[in-house]
């Protein structure tokens, strides 16, 4: 800050006091230099989309995110209304058709290809944010609501609350057979429930605490989105960020809010928590923030800070999708019925097998990490330096578990994507008659209602297995790279740990692919 005074022509003496004496009294210490901490994760300067003047102009426009949210907002309020008031035939009801046959699949495409693209246009967070900011797109300064921070006790677990919310929502969806397809009104109630809880969160907590900590989809999009090709908003010159006296990207400036996601472009090392809202870009007084693209899988491989909450999120989310695969097998109905009969629970899915199944898979992932450590780990290896918080601390177990879980992100992402394909291939065309039905045109006998993009089970299974093969190959590559960098020093041999990690990814890919074959295109 004294440096700043020097830049403004400070030469000592009295003059500068008279011009603006405050900088003279500021004696802040120089920030510590991160050195090479971000060398692996910083995108190449040439990949800054905002270097294009048209993109820059678009991002600087305050209506940018509003225009992304608006179409989705309209669709989701239509979903709520039509689900409640429209036909009870699920395939012909716009609410069921758009939500479960198209939207869910599109969200997965967006997260794999881009990252948090959905978050930038999400109508749930968007609605809450409009209310919280009491504007659609203007820069306001006094938020509505309590505006409190998420308590430290919750915040320290990062994305795990979001994982819990996703598990709960999925159980509710299964219990009420909302996507099954069940009663279209159930879809409306579910969407209303999400909108309501989002709104309540936005009115209690500051910024996008809902999206960062609570939203059921946030952890899934954050982890699987690491495969995506958009690095997010990042610093153009870290020195400028480090010496910035305002940090308007975090606190908010005249033209933009402070980052709603608690991400600083000056230290972001992945796209994990960049909601692509462009507020930091608008707020930066130095035009020092760019919107960068990156090679796919970079945010899986490159980060030097590996977070335990992300690792556990991967394990639990994998547990959930594997559970959903297993519960489509014929034997599972008997298991669930048996459990319900013995626990007095009325119907599928029994909470015990739901939680138990997910926990078994997640613990199996932990066990697999331990096994890898037992097979290739060096007993005399010193633990890498780490922080002391839940997300950062290390242990012999974590030193293998956390990197390995990062490595298998592509297989988990592919699994979720493949899981959505039967509904998409079999029923996506129903969106057209469902829209027509609103205007008295579409019926269950219309051609598009009874048409499938891929009709045969074998065709669907082929695509699912193909998706899993691609995901598995990607996961083998990421596991190989992650193990080579993070685990080599802890293992008896770099090559051995790389082969073992890639082998784990392959095994998981094969298991899930086999499950898809056994499921026979069940949706």
């Amino acid at each position, binding site marked *: 800050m004294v440096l700043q005074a020097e830049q403004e022509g400070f030469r000592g003496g009295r003059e500068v006091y008279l011009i603006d004496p405050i900088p003279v009294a500021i004696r802040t210490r120089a920030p510590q230099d991160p050195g090479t901490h971000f060398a692996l994760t910083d995108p190449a300067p040439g990949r800054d989309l905002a270097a294009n003047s048209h993109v820059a102009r678009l991002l600087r426009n305050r209506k940018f995110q509003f225009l992304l949210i608006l179409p989705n907002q309209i669709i989701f309020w239509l979903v709520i209304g039509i689900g409640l008031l429209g036909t009870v035939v699920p395939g012909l009801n716009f609410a069921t058709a758009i939500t479960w046959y198209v939207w869910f699949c599109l969200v997965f495409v967006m997260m794999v290809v881009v990252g948090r693209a959905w978050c930038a246009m999400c109508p749930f967070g968007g609605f809450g944010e409009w209310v919280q900011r009491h504007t659609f797109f203007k820069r306001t300064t006094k938020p509505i609501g309590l505006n409190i921070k998420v308590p430290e006790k919750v915040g320290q677990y990062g994305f795990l609350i979001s994982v819990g919310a996703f598990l709960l929502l999925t159980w509710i969806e299964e219990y009420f057979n909302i996507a099954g397809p069940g009663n279209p009104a159930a879809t409306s109630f579910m969407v209303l429930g999400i909108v309501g809880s989002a709104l309540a969160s936005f009115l209690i907590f500051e910024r996008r605490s809902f999206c960062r900590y609570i939203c059921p989809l946030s952890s899934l999009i954050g982890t699987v989105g690491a495969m995506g090709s958009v690095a997010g908003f990042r610093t153009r010159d870290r020195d400028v*960020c480090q010496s910035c006296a305002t940090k308007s990207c975090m606190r908010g400036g005249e033209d933009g809010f402070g980052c709603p996601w608690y991400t600083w472009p000056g230290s972001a090392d992945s796209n994990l928590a960049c909601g692509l809202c462009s507020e930091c870009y608008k707020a930066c007084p130095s035009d020092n923030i760019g919107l960068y693209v990156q090679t796919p899988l970079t945010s899986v491989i490159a980060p030097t800070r590996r977070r335990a909450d992300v690792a556990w999120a991967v394990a639990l989310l994998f547990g959930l999708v594997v559970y959903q695969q297993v519960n489509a097998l014929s034997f599972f109905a008997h298991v669930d019925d048996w459990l319900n009969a013995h626990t007095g629970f009325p119907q599928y899915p029994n909470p015990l097998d739901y939680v138990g199944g997910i926990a078994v898979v997640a613990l199996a992932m932990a066990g697999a990490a331990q096994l890898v450590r037992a097979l290739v780990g060096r007993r005399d290896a010193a633990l890498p330096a780490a922080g002391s918080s839940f997300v950062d601390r290390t242990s012999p177990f974590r030193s293998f578990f956390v990197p390995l879980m990062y490595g298998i992100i592509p297989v988990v992402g592919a699994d979720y994507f493949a899981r959505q394909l039967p509904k998409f291939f079999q029923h996506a065309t129903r969106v057209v008659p469902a829209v027509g039905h609103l205007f008295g045109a579409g019926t269950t006998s219309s051609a598009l209602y009874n048409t499938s993009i891929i009709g045969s089970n074998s065709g669907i299974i082929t695509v699912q297995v193909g998706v899993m093969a691609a995901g598995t190959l990607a996961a083998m590559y990421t596991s190989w790279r992650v193990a080579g960098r993070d685990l080599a020093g802890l293992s008896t041999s770099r090559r051995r740990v790389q082969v073992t990690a890639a082998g784990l990814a392959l095994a998981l890919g094969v298991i899930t692919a086999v499950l898809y074959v056994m499921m026979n295109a069940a949706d």
Partner: protein
Amino acid sequence: MTILESPVHVAVVADRCAGCQECVIRCPKGALSMDSVTWTVLADDAACVGCRQCERTCPFGAISIEGPVQLAERAEVSLYHPARLLGDVGETRRGFADEAAALAEADRCLSCLDPTCVRGCPAHNDIPGFIGAIRRRDYAGAQTILHATSVTPDICSRVCNQAAQCEGACSWSLAGAAPVAIGRLERYITERAAVPAPRVSTSGAGISVGIIGSGPAGAGAAWDLVEAGCQVTVYEADATPGGLPVWGMPDFTLPDEIARRPWVQLEDAGVEVVTNRRIAASEVDSLLNVHDALIVAVGAGMPIRPKVPGIDADGVTDATSFLKGAKSALDGTGDAASFLESLGVHAGARVLVLGAGNTAMDVARLARRLDLGALCVDWMDERFALARPDELAEARAEGVEVRFTRTLAALHAREGRVARAELARTEQASAKRVPTVLAEDHELLDVDLVVMAMGYRNDPNFLSVLPGTPVRKVVAAVPDATWRASGLMAAPAPTPGRASIGELALGRESGLWAAALARRDRVWVAGDALTGPATVVEAMAQGRRAARSILDTRPSRTGQPGAPRVLVAYESVGGTTRKVAETIASRCFGRGLDVSVRPMGDVGAREIAAADVLVIGTWVEGFVLAGVRPAKAARAWLASLPPLAGRSVAVFCTYGVNPRGALDEMAALVEAKGARVLSREAFRAGDLKATGTSGPESFAARVVSRVLEESLARVVSR
């Protein structure tokens, strides 16, 4: 002195810590560092003293402190209570008893690295700097540090309301603990080393400056101007220079020799003081013929009169008359009995003081020293009282009765002289609300004298010749970013509905910058005349800011010395507008003008104050023909401009398809600020590429010729 033993724990939410180091670079104890692996903050609990600066400065709220502050108790200095109040004007507030006490208090200072107290001080004294010098027992050095920003440290340390300024903004205060006694330490310096006299420059600025008024604003301005070698003439309506601190502040608050000290030094340094010369507003123009620049520092001295029946009766006077008479009666130059006789009262008479602010307290306490009974009434609720809490307590201790939620409903006269006051009750639910007067429960009091001390307002005659005054102190919706970064703005308001310390401080800052701008050609305004009734330190700082502006712009009554200065300010998003701005600037420079070119975001009051001509350009937003306007950022910047008081402005814009009314809107915005639009032009972005830069160059040529014409005309007319 007791150090609390309780441990302090620094909790960092690693998930939310972004590694920005805002806390690390500011922690006064160096208790924070970066974890090189996670690039989040590491805290050393043992080194933390719990000042919570990290909490206030963290942009994401990722750090919090648990446990009490680790701070020695502040040792209060007892007040002087006169054994016999009658006639005793001895100073009631005392300084430190000895050096040990001062050093102990200095040791409580954290020497904050981004000191919020400096922002809380309207003059921006380098408080950690002078406290550091006290620790070193370098009192001359401390005076040098103080002298850089204040010419009245001996006065300010006595009369400032530190709780609303430096001490209110002290890190300890913001953390909920007792602040460092900054005011008393400042006073201690002035007790140990004399306030240095002005150091008159031998080179000489060669500017003749007239200053109307010799209050703190006039003193601040005169000081810097005489130091820079200007010929300074001060016009003072009273017989003695010094303004309100001399005539209006009782000796028990501010001893007379301290109040007069700046003017003794200024006259010794060569400032010409013309006393008993009241300048009327209509004389401003004629004074401009004899001075290169004029600073109007006439204060805000028009007493506010309540509009109630009976207010014109005998026995009703205003605070100014009472304070002047009482001071003179008590300091030996006059005689108490004669003063009371002139008021038509005798010892033991009952004085009703209307108001319970600081001036009312001064009136009432002087009344007590004249052996009069004093009752202050104020329609505000005591919770929202405007008087300093310590001042109120001292007054009550001296026998002044203060009743809040009361207002004067009527005065009843007997034989033409006031005899009874009718008081009504009021209610005030919050500080923001104006009290409501209740119809019932009026009470009648026998009174012998009524003194109106409800505040002052500006002289309307001067307001009419000084465009834009009085300026309102404002805090932008998004306050200055470096102020927010300091953590000062994070402190909540002490009373609901009242401004917080940060808002108060930043509001004062807008007054300071307003002082840097000439209100008319060669006329600056400072102090209460600029912002309405405020404080001594603000007025002094504003006077210095106005003086600096004069020294920067070097006005001349015989013409513009040197080349006219052009400031090209632009708002650019893709670089086109910036290129046009640079082309215009380059052309102006080529014609011999003094040019600077900056993005609007970098242009503040200081840059505008130093420019004779503004060239303002922006891109236009909108889609094809829909919603086409100047860019929002540019509109906001134009709307935030200070009064331009006839300044010459040229406007331009760059557009894609059609600029529509963008230029008209820009012109209207600057004209609303009092500027004159010299020229306007819209440049099509595509044409610039196709035909080179001839458009901007020809526009620049037109601007240059108009600027030079005007400059010449000004010289000729003088």
